Structures are given as C-alpha cells and as structure tokens.
C-alpha cells in the first residue's frame, strides 16, 4: 500500500538517519510508525519494562536517565531513544520522561531490527555505543581529503637505490646517473647486519650535493670511498607516517632527503621536492619567512601570515594533527629566530643552554589562541652571579618578542624570564624527581605543564634526558600517578546540548562552552596520565595514545575512541577559530551552541560521552593505594 501519512514521511525524511535511507525503505518505515502523546512530566519508559519500539521525538522534549536516576541525555525534535534496550535484551535500559508536552513516533521493534541489520549506514548511526558514530564521522572525513592525510609511502615512486660503503665516489656518480636518482643509500654488508644477512644495514646517504660540496669542492680524488663523503646518523621516516610529518622532519633536521623504512627495511627515498610538489606550501612559506626576518618588528608583521596559513589549512580539510603540528613548528621557528637574534645582540652564551617549549607547543597541538609557555635549562657550570644577567636578558628578548608575535605572556608565569624556570640541568632533574617522588595535588597543578616538554634550541638532548627521567620514574610512582589523575579530573565535559544551550550533567544550562577547558585540555590531561603510567616518552597526544594502546591498559577499543574524540573536539575548536578569523573577530575557544550544526552537536555529545567515561575509568584505575 502506498504511504499516505505524509506528515510522518516528510518528518522522517527531514531528519537523520532516515534522510539517508533509500526511498522505498523510508516509505516502509513511515508506514510502520505509530504515535503516542505524553503530557509534560509523565513517564515514558521505566527501567526493565519490555522494549517494544524505537522512539523518535516528533515534538516536545524528553529526558533520558541512567538506571541510577542521573541525567543521561535530553532530546528534542528529531532526537531518538530506546535503541539500547532493543539491541540488547529487549528490556528498557534507560528510563525516559517527557519534560514538555511531547509527541512521539514509535517504530516497532521488528521494523527497527530489520533496518538495523540490513542497513549498515543506519546501524552505524544509531549504534549502541555512541563512539562508533564518531568513528564513522571521522573516517568519512578522511576519505574526503585523502591528499592531506596521505602516508609517506604514497610518495615513494621507486625502490631504494643502494650502494656498498666500500664503493668509490666515482662508482656512486655513475650509479646515480644510470639510475637517474639524486641520492643513494649507503649500505654495510658487514657482521653488524642482521643475523640472516638478507637485509643490508643502511649506514648513510649520499646526495648530489655531497658529491659537489664534500668531494669536488674539497679536491678529493674520485676513488675516495663513499663512506668518507656520505651523511651518517641517518634521519628516516616510517612508511606509514603522514607526508606532513616527513615534511616537518626535513625542516627540523635541515635535510632534503629522507629514507623511508618499513619494518627497518629501506623502501625508498623521498626528497623535499617530492613533498613540495605534493603538499600545500603554506606552512613551509611561513617558516621560511620567519627565518628571513631580521628584527622583532619584522617577525611581528608575520602574524597575519600565520593566521592565513591556519585558515587555509582548515579550508583544505587538514586534520587537527597536521594543523597542531604546523602551528607548533611555526611557533618553534619564531622562538628559534628570536634566539638567533638575541644571541646576535648579546653575543654567544657564556655556558651552553637549552630553550624549552612546554604545553601545547611541546605536544605539537598548538592553535591560534595560545600562551607562550617556556623555560631555560642551563649547563651545570652555570654561575648565577656571572651568567644570569645574560640569560635573563636572553629570556626577556624571546618572551617579549613572542608576545609581539601573538603568543601572549603566560599568566601562570611559566616563562624563561621567571628565575625559577631558568635553572641548571641538575636543578631541573631535582624538580622532576621531587614532583614525582613527593607529589602533592596542588604542587602538580602548577607543574603539570612541565610534563609536556620539548627542546627547541641549543642542547636539546637535555630535554630528551629529562623526558627519559620522567618516563622512568613516573611509572614507578603510584602516588604521583594518582595525583596527576586527580588533577586530570578537575575539568569535566558537559553532558551535551539542548536547544541552543550547553547542558551540564546536573541539567543546568549555559550559553557557551569553552572547547579547550571542557574538551581538548581534559582529554590531553587524561592521555598524559596514561602515557606516564606506561612510560611513554611521546609528546603528542595521538602518539601517546598509540603507546597506551600498545601497552594494553585500556578496555578494548577505548584508545581509538579517545583518539576520535580528541580529533573531533579539536576540529570543532579549530573550525570555529577559523570562522572567527574569517569574520574578522578575534578568535577564542568559546563556542555558542547556536553556531553548531545539528551534526556537530550530535558528534560532540558522543565525544563528551567518551571523555566522561574515560575520566571515570581514570579515577578508578589510579586510585591512591591501588597497585597498577
């Protein structure tokens, strides 16, 4: 029979997930709908009663509760509920009540079940766990911008061309010419190789430029062994890293060729020109420009370029990781250039030092609205009386310069200008030892930011050393982990959205939400605690999650959920900053629900739910006194 209930059909068609259904399926569903009215204040479902239908809110508003009576969700027109019970044991799992006069459309259990089982997209959408929907959202987005999320190995056009280190420079030149390549990997077929001897060990790389600068310009004979003129201490990338990461690695290490490895075996070599050809030039241009400026004024003039670069990346559908990494490299370059300028002004440093980036820049999760968080590690020979004037001046130049360039001063005083954070290495080691071995929640609240640290300039090995110290000590200190976990629970996500409000767990409403404070920051905090517990030395939250998943301390699938939640919340935050910039407003982290699409609200709610669940797990796992 042809569907005649046009009101029902039209309503369903206008609402997800029905709008996506094939027309004949949609008509079949619409024809199966029954209807029920509930007065405001009346109960709709009780826990444990037989689940016979799936409910779609046609008008009004409904509250869904957990079994213990706490609010789980609040729904309005187009919202749906009841799937949990239908998919489990056909008993109602989440009680429901009408909070306004409400008209409900009821889809009978057999129709719902058939739809769920036969239509994958529909099932993904209403899946029993909210997280799957978020996964779907993110993977669809990734499909849409394959270019930006391409892996390094897509750039490898041919197998690695290799040459033994005993060969001569002339052999190398002939080989490169014959193969038409601009670089060769140099191998050692010696006893240090793998036991089976099948895989040659890569000991270096030689490029066109090496032949020019290290052989011809030096006047060395053509029969010089390639091992004499190659670059050892190889910088490589794994085949499954993002093209973007390869680009950053080249920039950081000032190399133009990167061997690509898969399980330790060379797959090929990518050159900077490959990436430039392939990738957007945006952040490369900005970074290049930073290093060409010769005064703070000139650097400050680049702020507009930085923002334009950010907006362009958002427009090109870059993911949060690329944007965070690009902004961090830009921030890092500002610091490096300012330090170069400062050293030019003040003369060479009296003792070696390492300039540190902390917080989001160290995690490579920097966005447009950001504080400067930095510190200085000085050589152990540092003598305050003789040397501190220099480093104080250096710190002042850098911090003032950063403030001019759009990185506002840290309100918590975490800057190299603060004498407490301008100390010799052994003092820093003492700080970290103290924080970890004698933890107090308050103390760690102030120092938590130091557990995201990255060396930017100078003796960056010291920063690596501190990270190793933290990784070693932290996992052995349950009290420290418990304190960090406690602090990670101080900021909680909201429950979701209702009409044009943010809805808190206790049902209160607010007008705006700070996406950093209520979303990305508590997520990063939570990930950091787990990362410290498993001894991870990674800085980036996504990389930390990889280590956490490998260590297998989370319930199955939850690591990926956290990854998805972080990506989605970050992207909402990023997109809204980009919109602010496009509209000529000063970007911030506050978002008004009325500016969120229905789709964003739904997915954000899923992400908040994942965060809330993960916080509960964190609390349970790192209880003081619980052996991990």
């Amino acid at each position: 029979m042809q569907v005649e209930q046009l009101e029902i059909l039209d309503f369903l068609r206008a609402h997800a997930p029905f709008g996506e259904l094939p027309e004949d399926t949609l008509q079949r569903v619409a024809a199966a709908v029954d209807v029920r009215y509930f007065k405001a204040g009346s109960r709709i479902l009780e826990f444990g009663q037989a689940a016979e239908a799936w409910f779609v809110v046609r008008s009004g508003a409904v509250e869904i509760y957990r079994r213990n009576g706490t609010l789980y969700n609040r729904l309005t027109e187009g919202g749906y509920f009841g799937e949990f019970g239908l998919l489990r044991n056909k008993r109602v799992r989440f009680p429901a009540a009408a909070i306004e006069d409400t008209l409900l459309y009821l889809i009978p259990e057999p129709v719902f079940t058939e739809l769920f089982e036969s239509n994958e997209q529909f099932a993904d959408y209403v899946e029993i766990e909210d997280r799957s929907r978020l996964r779907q959202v993110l993977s669809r987005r990734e499909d849409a911008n394959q270019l930006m999320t391409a892996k390094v190995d897509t750039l490898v056009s041919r197998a690695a061309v290799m040459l033994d280190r005993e060969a001569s420079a002339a052999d190398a030149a002939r080989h490169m010419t014959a193969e038409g390549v601009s670089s060769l990997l140099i191998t050692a077929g010696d006893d240090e190789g793998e036991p089976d001897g099948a895989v040659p060990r890569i000991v270096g790389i030689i490029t066109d430029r090496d032949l020019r600068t290290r052989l011809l310009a030096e006047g060395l004979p053509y029969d010089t062994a390639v091992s004499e003129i190659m670059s050892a201490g190889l910088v490589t990338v794994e085949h499954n890293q993002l093209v973007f990461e390869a680009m950053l690695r080249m920039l950081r290490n000032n190399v133009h060729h990167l061997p690509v490895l898969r399980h330790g075996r060379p797959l090929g070599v990518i050159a900077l020109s490959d990436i430039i050809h392939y990738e957007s030039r945006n952040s490369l241009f900005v970074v290049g420009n930073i290093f060409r400026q010769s005064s703070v004024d000139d650097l400050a003039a680049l702020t507009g370029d930085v923002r334009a670069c950010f907006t362009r990346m958002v427009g090109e559908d870059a993911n949060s990781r690329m944007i965070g990494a690009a902004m961090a490299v830009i921030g890092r370059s500002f610091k490096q250039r300012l330090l170069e300028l400062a050293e030019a002004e003040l003369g060479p440093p009296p003792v070696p030092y390492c300039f540190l980036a902390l917080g989001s820049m160290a995690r490579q999760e920097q966005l447009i609205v950001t504080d400067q968080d930095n510190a200085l590690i000085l050589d152990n020979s540092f003598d305050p009386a003789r040397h501190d004037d220099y480093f104080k001046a250096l710190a002042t130049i850098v911090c003032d310069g950063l403030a001019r360039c759009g990185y506002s001063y840290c309100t918590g005083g975490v800057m190299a200008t603060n004498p407490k954070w301008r100390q010799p290495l052994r003092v820093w080691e003492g700080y970290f030892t103290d924080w970890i071995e004698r933890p107090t929640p308050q103390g760690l609240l102030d120092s938590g930011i130091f557990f995201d640290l990255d060396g930017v300039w100078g003796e960056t090995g010291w920063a690596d050393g501190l990270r190793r110290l933290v990784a070693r000590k932290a996992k052995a200190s349950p009290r420290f982990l418990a304190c960090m976990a406690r602090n990670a629970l101080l900021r909680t996500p909201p429950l979701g959205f209702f009409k044009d409000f943010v809805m808190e767990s206790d049902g209160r409403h607010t007008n705006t939400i700070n996406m950093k404070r209520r979303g990305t920051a508590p997520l990063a905090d939570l990930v950091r605690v787990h990362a410290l517990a498993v001894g991870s030395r990674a800085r980036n939250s996504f990389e930390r999650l990889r280590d956490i998943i490998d260590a297998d301390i989370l319930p199955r699938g939850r690591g990926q959920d956290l990854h998805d939640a972080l990506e989605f919340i970050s992207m909402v935050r990023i997109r809204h900053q980009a919109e602010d910039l496009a509209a000529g407003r000063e970007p911030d982290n506050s978002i008004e629900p009325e500016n969120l699409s229905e789709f964003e609200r739904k997915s954000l709610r899923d992400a908040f739910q994942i965060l809330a669940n993960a916080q509960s797990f964190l609390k349970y796992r790192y209880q003081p006194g619980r052996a991990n």
Partner: protein
Amino acid sequence: MLHLGPLKDVQGEAGEDDVHAVPDWPARFAELAASARDARLRAFYAAGLPAGDTPLGEVPMVALDVETTGLDPRRDEIVSVGVVPMDLERIRSSASRHWVVRPRRVLDAESVTLHGITHSQVAAAPDLGEVLGELLDALAGRIVVVHCRAIERGFLAAALRERIGEALAFAAIDTMELEARVHRQRKRGWWARLFDRSPQLSIRLADARARYGLPRYRPHHALSDALATAELLQAQVAHRYTVDTPLAELWR
C-alpha cells in the same frame, strides 16, 4: 475536514446531537442492528460498542476525517475518507486507511485546491458505495473520534441515505466539543461582550493542537487530519481527563 465559515445547517442532519439527549449507544446499536436492512450496516451495528461506564483507557477508538467538496451535506459530497485506529496507549497510524472516492456531482476548482485531490484522481476513484463495507469494518466496535462531529455525521449520513436509503449513526468523541467545553463554557454576558476585548480562543483543529504543544500539520488531507485529531484527543485526555474517566462523559 473543512470548516471555513459558519456551518450551513449541518446540525439539523443529526437530530441526536441535542446535548440533553446523549443516547445509550450500546442499546441504540442493538436496536439499529435489528432494524437495518443493508447487510454491511447490520454487521456494523451488530459489532456493538463498549458500555458507557467503560474507563477511557480500555476503549477502542478510531479517528475519522472526511474531505468534502463544500460545507453543505445536502449539496456537497465526500471526496476522501481517512481513518486511524487508536486507543489511549497508541495511535495505530500503521493501520490507518485512506480512500479517495468519486463524488456524483462535479468538483469545483476551489475545493480541488484545498485538499489537493485532482480531477484525474477522482475520476479513477470508486464510488463511496463500493468501499462502504471496508469503511464500516474499520469503524466497527470502536468509538469514532472526530473534530466537529456534525461534518462527519452529516456527510456520511447523507451519502448512505443516497446510496442505500438508510442513514448512518455512530458514537463519537468530538475533540472540538471537548475544546469548547473548556473555552466556551460560559456564555459571555453583555458586560463581557462590551468590555472584554480578549478574543475568544479558537477551537479549530490547528489552534487547539498548538495549545497542547502538538506540531503544525498541513490541513485538508483526510488522513493527516484524522491523525491530527487522534493526537489531539490523547493530549486532551492527558491534560483534562484520566484513563479511568468513564466513556459516557465524552461520547455524544
């Protein structure tokens, strides 16, 4: 349904509409079952009705709406009928029925634009007499829920009289009348008529629905209007009655 202006003498079509003479419907149906000549009509009456003291929560109902070519049952005719079975627990939209029927006189252009039924649809449609059995089956044993019972009663009675020479009587809950009981309770005295400028609340279907938070539906489709009426009754009962209210308080 259609009521754009004052009803043209439709009240007179059904004499039992006198408020002071609410019939004992089951008894009336028993009489009619004995006297009806048409077999379909006889079966309809023989199906009986719940007693007047039955709690509303146990009463099987069916929402009904007819679309017509105009407002005068003596001149105008039915072009479509929609029915939606229901009770207070659930409106069985999934079991609803809708018939387009061919009027014996010509459709005028104005009514075509109102209910969206075209001449070609009507030309292909059966006569009401051909679907009468199905229609009566859908109503049998149930209390009919309508918005403005005079329309449905008047037009159905006239249509049956013309086809089988007998009228149709049915027990109805009238959502418009339930609305009037609340909003038209007191006759407005001369004082109020002089000085009370507040307009009388409309008891038309869409306006009544809006007062209960029900969504706006497009009017003038027999099935949408029947559904809209069914939802309105559930809302009225939820707000003003209970599942234990005896049926006789509502039926007319």
